């Protein structure tokens, strides 16, 4: 429900400002705004899963290094999470 509301809002906002920027000759801004709005809408569509997030990209990039550091230092990083 919240997702649909935000998609509708960002689509309307994106379309309005894209057209406005385009009319003023700011093509680059208009294209980037359209792209950002589309990406946001894609993230919020229900049923769309496995999109990259900052968390997943960082985990993919740094997990081997993190595992190596933890193993090298031989430390336990277990803390209680209720």
């Amino acid at each position, binding site marked *: 429900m*919240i*997702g649909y509301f*935000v998609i509708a*809002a*960002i689509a309307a*906002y*994106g379309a309005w*400002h894209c057209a*406005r*920027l385009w009319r003023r000759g*700011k093509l*680059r*801004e208009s294209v*980037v*705004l359209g792209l*950002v*709005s589309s*990406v*946001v809408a894609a*993230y*919020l569509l229900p049923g769309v*899963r496995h*999109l990259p*997030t*900052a*968390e*997943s*990209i*960082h*985990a993919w*990039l*740094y*997990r081997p*290094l*993190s595992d190596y*550091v*933890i193993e090298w*230092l*031989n*430390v336990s*990083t277990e*803390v*209680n*999470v*209720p």
Partner: protein
Amino acid sequence: MIRERITPFQLGCLCFSFLSGFSTLYLLEAKLLMQDVWIANLTACLFILMLLKMNAYVQNQYPHANMSDIIDIVLGKWLGKLAHAFYLLGMLGLGVLSLRSISVFYTSAILPGTSPNLIMLLVVIVTTYAASLGLSTIARSVLVILPFFVVSIVAIGFFIYQDVEANPFMPQLQHPLPLLLYGSLISFGFPFCKSYVMVFLFSEVTHQKKLFKSCSIAVVFSCAYLLIATYLTIGSLGDNMFKTAMFPFFSSIQLVKFGEYIERIEILIIAIWTIMTMYEIIVLQYVFVQIAGRLFGMKALKPFYLPVGVFFFAVATKSFVNPAELVAYDLKILPVSVNLNAVLVPVCVFVLTLFKKRGGSVQELNHS
């Protein structure tokens, strides 16, 4: 484009709010190190002061350029763009962490039946409005909130201190050096390394010579606040309860009773935490839009605050669905991932600035 200037004092206040937003929410490094946590916090604090000194030195060499421009000049166009992409990714990660932390806190401590997405959306609406008002408005509003924060925390700290019977930081040096080192990394990853975001505001400060002084005072006060909160929390809750509480400082505040006049004093702290966390997201959103604008060569940035805010929200809805994932990320990935943005790029820029003769392009930039 009109440049919005802030004073060094405003930068310091903003830096303190940014670092202390919810630095006391989880106290993860304290859960690992218990009484030796002060070593980790002080080590991380000293390290970040050193990095801030480097950043302030670099900024002083190019007084009229933003740190984004400096990175472009020093590292070159394409390497600079790559560094900016990593900065944007890091800031998106920090923004998502803040949004998720605030929603986890609300849904587990106060509003268990409310959707986390709704809480995040409400926060994003407020932060988007605030970020679109501009840097000088953000900085001036911090000056209104900060005295309220200081008085409340001092009062609550005084009441919690009455429950502390023994020094919780004794006996000292009970943990091996590798664990102390890793604890320092965790403390560096969160909250101290976040100060790399403030570096992008350096060019907007009126007195460039006071950059390091204002930021270092903010970092030292932030470290003192973290240490005092940890001391009071371990001292009032005891070791076992401290380790098992999800939000230990919040649990210790819940123990405070002030006669029959003030009840549920933790509500006050929740309000303060929420506002301070919002400042963190506001600054992230503002700097994110500025860097994205430079990355894509855009001038009109005003229409981007809302899409970027909603982008933070959209990514947050897909991240850290389970609070355990958030804690695992803070403990394992963040201490390593921040080093590229907070250490590697600033050190490279500093070293290259030291050795690079200031060429024509820099002088042109300074005169423009």
